[in-house]
């Protein structure tokens, strides 16, 4: 009888422990993007000055797209890093900011106070954020010369992350297109 109770107890506890063991090794906030390795959704957006940026036309140069907002503290933290990145790889990598559910006036004010690392694009209706499956700012997508999303950062980008992906983006040549 005792052995039976022990077996039943193990039968119940082991699967629960396995599920917990698997769950605790994963950050529930991080959901793998199904877009990695897929073509980046094309968009045409206006920046704060009304200039239109068409992602299609940037093909041939790696692009870093950062979804951000002024109410997002990690966005403040990564701001100087993106500034430095945009300066370091100027002309080699395009840095684009997409405003995530924020007031363009506040973005303009923030940029005036802290500087900018790229155009701040107005995503009316949040359709571009939906097309990129953005859960919340900041999220950064790294797009290679062929327009394929090669990586994604959730939360503030770290210098190691930026350096690593930028080197990969710059090292990969564009695929020859027919």
């Amino acid at each position, binding site marked *: 009888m005792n052995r039976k109770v022990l077996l039943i107890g193990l039968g119940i506890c082991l699967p629960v422990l396995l599920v917990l063991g698997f769950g605790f090794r994963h950050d529930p906030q991080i*959901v*793998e*993007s*199904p*877009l990695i390795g897929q073509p980046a*959704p*094309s*968009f*045409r*957006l*206006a920046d704060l*000055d*009304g*200039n*239109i*940026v*068409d992602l*299609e*036309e*940037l093909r041939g*140069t790696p692009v870093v797209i950062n979804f951000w907002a*002024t109410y997002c*503290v*990690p966005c*403040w*933290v*990564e*701001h*100087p*890093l993106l500034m*430095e*990145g*945009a*300066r370091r790889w*100027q002309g080699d990598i395009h*840095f684009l900011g997409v405003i995530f*559910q924020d007031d363009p006036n*506040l*973005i303009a*004010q923030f940029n005036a*106070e*802290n*500087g*900018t*690392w*790229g*155009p701040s694009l107005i995503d*009316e*209706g*949040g*359709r*571009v*954020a*939906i*097309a990129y*499956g*953005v*859960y*919340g700012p900041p999220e950064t997508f790294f797009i290679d010369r062929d327009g394929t999303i090669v990586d994604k950062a959730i939360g503030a980008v770290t*210098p190691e992350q930026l350096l690593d992906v930028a080197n990969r983006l710059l090292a990969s040549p564009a695929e020859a297109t027919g």
Partner: protein
Amino acid sequence: MRRATGIPAAAVVLLGAPAFWPASGATPGILAALPPTAAALAQSQDAGPGVDQPPAEGEYRPGLGVEASRELGDPQGEPLSGEELDRAVSLVAADIRCPKCQALSIADSGASSAQAMRAEARSLLASGYTRDQVVRYFEQRYGEFVLLEPRARGLNLIVWTAPAATVLAGGLLVARRLRRRRSADEGLDAYLRQVKRDDGDDGDNGETAT
């Protein structure tokens, strides 16, 4: 009152400054002292590919945003409108998880992300995309996590089969217990009958004996 947008030094202290942060005076104020970046970028953007000149005031510039149709292909249904569209939006919205909420559908959430997704669903359904196409569109962007009801495949099968398996196992356990109890009761009844019979016999004898 004006809302401050600058980076508070407290936040930097709390969250730590990135390694690229300028060494001299790691405060937000130093960012404004790096004009070459902004100026050079602005210059490169003006001259760079993919950047048009600003529109004239009041000029309508269509085609901004993203073309979901490029990701979805051709619509496979009929364009919906009116109450039919409202119903279809409600059905789709009930199946899609709000990405910023805890286990809430975009139909039930008031979050701005949920509102944007409902609007996108409405726009797609009004363009003739079917419910399946719209759900697939969200799934392709956000992953299977966005589905409130996970698909019955792979590891998800555990989620689908575990409740039924648990109920079945519980039912079997209860049935087994009941059967045991019944057989025990039957055994007890037989024993009591036997005792009664014996007692009856003895009782008769006993009564006469006493």
